[in-house]
């Protein structure tokens, strides 16, 4: 014999478990509303220089992949360290960053860049999450501002220019 409240508990557990274990909808899509692409060039220049070398994110072995002059090239015939970064490489790096965590990226952009640490990109760059490259920015320094101002859709070009030569 089973007591009614036991039945109820089991039913509640099952009701809770079924949606939690349900497979993701294969047809679900997320519309990207990333930060401004037009003002990404200076951010990309910094990221290419500091993060995009061949031994870091300039490789196909990273979830976050960057393309550009200092690292992996997009077009056959282009060689690392030679010709300047192409607009196609900026596009590819932009897509890689924006699509890394699209839902969170959307939320950060919708909040005008508030709490950018929601993004793994920012946490790893700041070193608050395990990152083989260590902390490459400090909260509030020009490198951090370069990234976070872009996430707020107000790219600080001065900070990005300073980040390129820092240190």
């Amino acid at each position, binding site marked *: 014999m089973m007591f009614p409240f036991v039945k109820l508990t089991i039913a509640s557990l099952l009701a809770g478990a079924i949606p939690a274990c349900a497979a993701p909808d294969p047809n679900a899509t997320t519309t990207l509303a990333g930060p401004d692409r037009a003002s990404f060039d200076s951010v990309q220049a910094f990221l290419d*220089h500091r993060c995009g*070398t*061949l*031994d*870091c994110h300039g490789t196909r072995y990273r979830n976050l992949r960057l393309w550009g*002059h200092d*690292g992996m090239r*997009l077009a056959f015939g282009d060689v*690392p360290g030679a010709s300047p970064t192409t607009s196609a490489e900026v596009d590819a790096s932009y897509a890689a960053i924006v699509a890394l965590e699209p839902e969170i990226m959307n939320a950060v952009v919708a909040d005008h860049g508030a709490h950018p640490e929601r993004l793994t990109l920012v946490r790893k760059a700041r070193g608050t999450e395990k990152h083989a490259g*260590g902390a490459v920015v400090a909260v509030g320094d020009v490198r951090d501002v370069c990234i976070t101002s872009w996430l707020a859709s107000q790219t600080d070009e001065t900070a990005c220019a300073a980040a390129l030569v820092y240190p």
Partner: protein
Amino acid sequence: MVKRSLFGVLTMLATTCTLDPVQSEAIADLGGEAPGIPPGPLHRPGQPCLVCHDGSTARPAMSVGGTVYALLGATAPLSGAGVELTAEDGSTFLARTNVAGNFYVEAAAWQPVYPLRVAVAFGGLTSTMSTIIGRDGSCASCHVDPPSRISAGRVYLAPSAALLPDGGAP
């Protein structure tokens, strides 16, 4: 004699074995030693040193290591070149290439704070790497021949023979 053989085998295993399958595969991919060149400072030019010399597999443990060639696209090593390494914290280390073009920095001597900047100097000519080194102390992790979308090609001093310093011909 059996004892000695066993000791030899164990020593070899201790210096070449790793339980990391990724590293094991990377080591296997390097292939065997070149004929007539035993393990040592002259061996395996152009290969990524730290795949083995990582502090747990082969000795000495290295923090940085690589091979420098005289000319772009050529295979002749550059002997006697200075390899000037500068870490993010401002500390520096000067290594010198041997007759194989190889140089290395023992980990016990210098553990750089990345990113690194590097320049190669020989006979009054200095060639500075245009990008930083983010985290990998093996030059050949990125500098492999031929140049491609994902490789800058070998490390070299001069892009053409005409630019080599007097007496710099390899």
